[in-house]
């Protein structure tokens, strides 16, 4: 199989180049990550993050033939050759397919992604009905892979100010939690021309999320709540 992979080593390269690779591999049943790891056995310098190799840790988000996804759950045989691999767009590249996630994670942390509840803690669990719990489905499963935010044009143009789909999805995860008591503060924080309102519902994020989550819908819900609050 043929590959064309984005290469950049900051110690030696003035600018990135695309490098061609050939690999003798039976594509049937293999994932893209398997191929990348075999290429790395040939060329030790090829650099990529990976951990779980089953789509749950969020390490290996990359741009695969123009679309963001996780290499470890992308079947090799579905890909058109030469398979073009690039780092996630819009974030600074550290080396090869490895991007600097600090900006992305800063936005995540900025939404206070933790339960806020100031009541005294009961000695048993806080009760929550199955219906209330169901509100969190499609939100809590995020693996912070950044495939969504790095496919969002608004995030590319305002990387420092727009929270982006992943961060907003988590903001809504806590707003939607019946145990959380900080909804108003959370909404105040997002009522801002940049933090939330840069989203123009382009839906790129929904299309690429490897966990099938829907940040656009969550963002819509936050906007609804803001409107409701003013009337």
């Amino acid at each position, binding site marked *: 199989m043929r590959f064309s992979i984005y290469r950049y*080593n900051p110690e030696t390269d003035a600018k990135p180049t695309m490098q061609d690779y050939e690999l003798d591999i039976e594509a049937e049943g293999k994932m893209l990550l398997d191929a990348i790891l075999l290429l790395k056995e040939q060329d030790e310098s090829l650099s990529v993050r990976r*951990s*779980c190799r089953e789509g749950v*840790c969020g390490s290996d988000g990359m741009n695969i033939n123009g679309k963001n996804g996780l290499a470890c759950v992308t079947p090799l045989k579905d890909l058109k050759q030469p398979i073009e691999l690039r780092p996630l767009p819009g974030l600074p590249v550290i080396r090869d397919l490895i991007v600097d996630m600090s900006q992305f994670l800063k936005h995540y942390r900025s939404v206070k*992604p933790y339960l806020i509840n100031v009541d005294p803690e009961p000695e048993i*669990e806080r*009760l929550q009905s199955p219906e209330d*719990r169901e509100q969190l489905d499609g939100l809590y499963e995020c693996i912070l892979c950044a495939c969504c935010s790095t496919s969002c044009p608004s995030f590319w143009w305002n990387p420092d100010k727009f929270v982006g789909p992943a961060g907003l999805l988590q903001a809504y995860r806590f707003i939607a*939690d019946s145990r*959380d008591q900080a909804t108003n503060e959370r909404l105040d924080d997002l009522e801002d021309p940049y933090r939330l309102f840069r989203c123009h519902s382009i839906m790129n994020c929904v299309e690429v999320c490897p966990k099938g989550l829907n940040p656009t819908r969550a963002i819509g819900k936050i906007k609804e709540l803001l409107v409701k609050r003013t009337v």
Partner: protein
Amino acid sequence: MIAKRTFDAVIIGGGGAGLRAALQLAHADLKVAVVSKVFPTRSHTVSAQGGIAASLGNVSEDNWHWHMYDTVKGSDYLGDQDAIEFMCRGANEAVIELEHFGMPFDRLENGKIYQRPFGGMTQDYGGAPAVRTCAVADRTGHAMLHTLYQRNIAARTHFFEEYFALDLVMDEEGYSQGVVALGIESGEPIFIEARATILATGGAGRIFSATTNALINTGDGLGMALRAGIPLEDMEFWQFHPTGVHGAGVLITEGVRGEGGYLVNRNGERFMERYAPNAKDLASRDVVSRAMAVEIFEGRGCGKDSDHVLLKLDHLGPEVIQQRLPGIRELALKFAHVDPATDPIPVVPTVHYMMGGIPTNLHGQVVMPTATGPEEAVPGLYAIGECACVSVHGANRLGSNSLLDLIVFGRAAGNDVIEYCRENPFLRPVPVQALERIAARLARWDRTGEGITVPELREEMRKTMQLHCGVFRTEAVLQDGVKKMLEIAAKLPDVVLRDQSKIYNTGRIEALELENLMAVALATMHSAAARQESRGAHARDDYPARDDNAWLKHSLYFSDAHRLDYKPVRLKPLTVEAFQPKARVY
């Protein structure tokens, strides 16, 4: 001189255990740093599916005594009963705490935490199944790890993300003084100085070629401990899950066989009928795994390399598969590229969990034999989670007890560190020699020229471990394995890196991981070859019975001359009566 940062305590590992300990310390206003070679939510805890055990009794009547009995029996009586009592007693509080932290547990109609039945968990000391395992769908580990990370954001814990811990810094008197870590992005080492150090580096399933473990599970903490002169306990005990997808290692749940699926060899024979005429494919995990290994070893495996067997479930019909096993169908399609509705899934016994590890007491303190006693604490050094051996799992872990182990002992170690830091308010002089030794070890990888590559040697090691220290163990197979592993380990100095760059050199990280893998593999091989009985996951064909007279004791492996020592099992619980060893029938 190497750069230095100073904290009260440093935790190596940002999985469930490390993050739980970090919270305890941050809440006590200690300056705490967490070092992790991956961003914390990429740790292996994220992969745990089924759930976390606690006798909440939300569904069926339950109490911690029953949970304790099941855990002792599950451990094949090798578990330390004081630690097991401590864990089962503390389970409810620890899980409730996770709920208060915000963990999105599934709920029952009455609003309480949802629980499900799990293997080996019973009511009334071996009676009806207990519904004891608290779950967040089949993503319990993900929910737990993210919740703990989120609490640490709130607590403003200091993270060294993508720093690779190289070695413990110990002074001449044996005090732990912190760790030297390599900044993966910068390529520069840094000394993180701290009065207390907690190892929470997780498992090492990557010493085998078939494992459900993540690529990062390379036993780094165990390698560090061995290099610091600390022994490893009970390393012969590795849990094999019968049905991991061949090649990928991804887990296929026991529920498939519960629904009527069964295993066949290359002749299409349902071979479990020969090994377990009654329970057949639903015999216990160790029995099924061993039968599979025999079939493969004797040449009745499937595929061009005769290296797996097939899990057949097409006879169940597409409706049952779609209705009862939709997730499995998806996994099989993705990772085995077969549709189980028409074709069998290639499976192999797959290494799943390491029961052994760095010996500790129930406060998480690392303990080892010294001139003054058999279990003396190493001052300032702790170990928790899968890298530690408390030992609550003994010779065989029960499903959903591991996540519990992480949070109960993560918390306990945190509390003990708080105490330790109070009693030891001052830093000790920097042990310069120790730092120099670590620098030299790192510099070894700067060598260029001819040599073998990291993946070459790593794959040779993994294949050898799989063949000689798998579920099928006899004197000949094990002794042969010891010999081969010593030969393989002797090649380590011949490995060279072709890529000598500094910034984000993942090749160098893999080389450093290989050193640790090799140390863990040697420990496993030697410990297994010595134990002449069958107990829990350590099953020997030539010694098929458990031998409590000779072997009701923990192994301790030291890396110098591959020396083995033994220490008694702690049969006395904290407050209740001991459970005496009995024959184990389910």
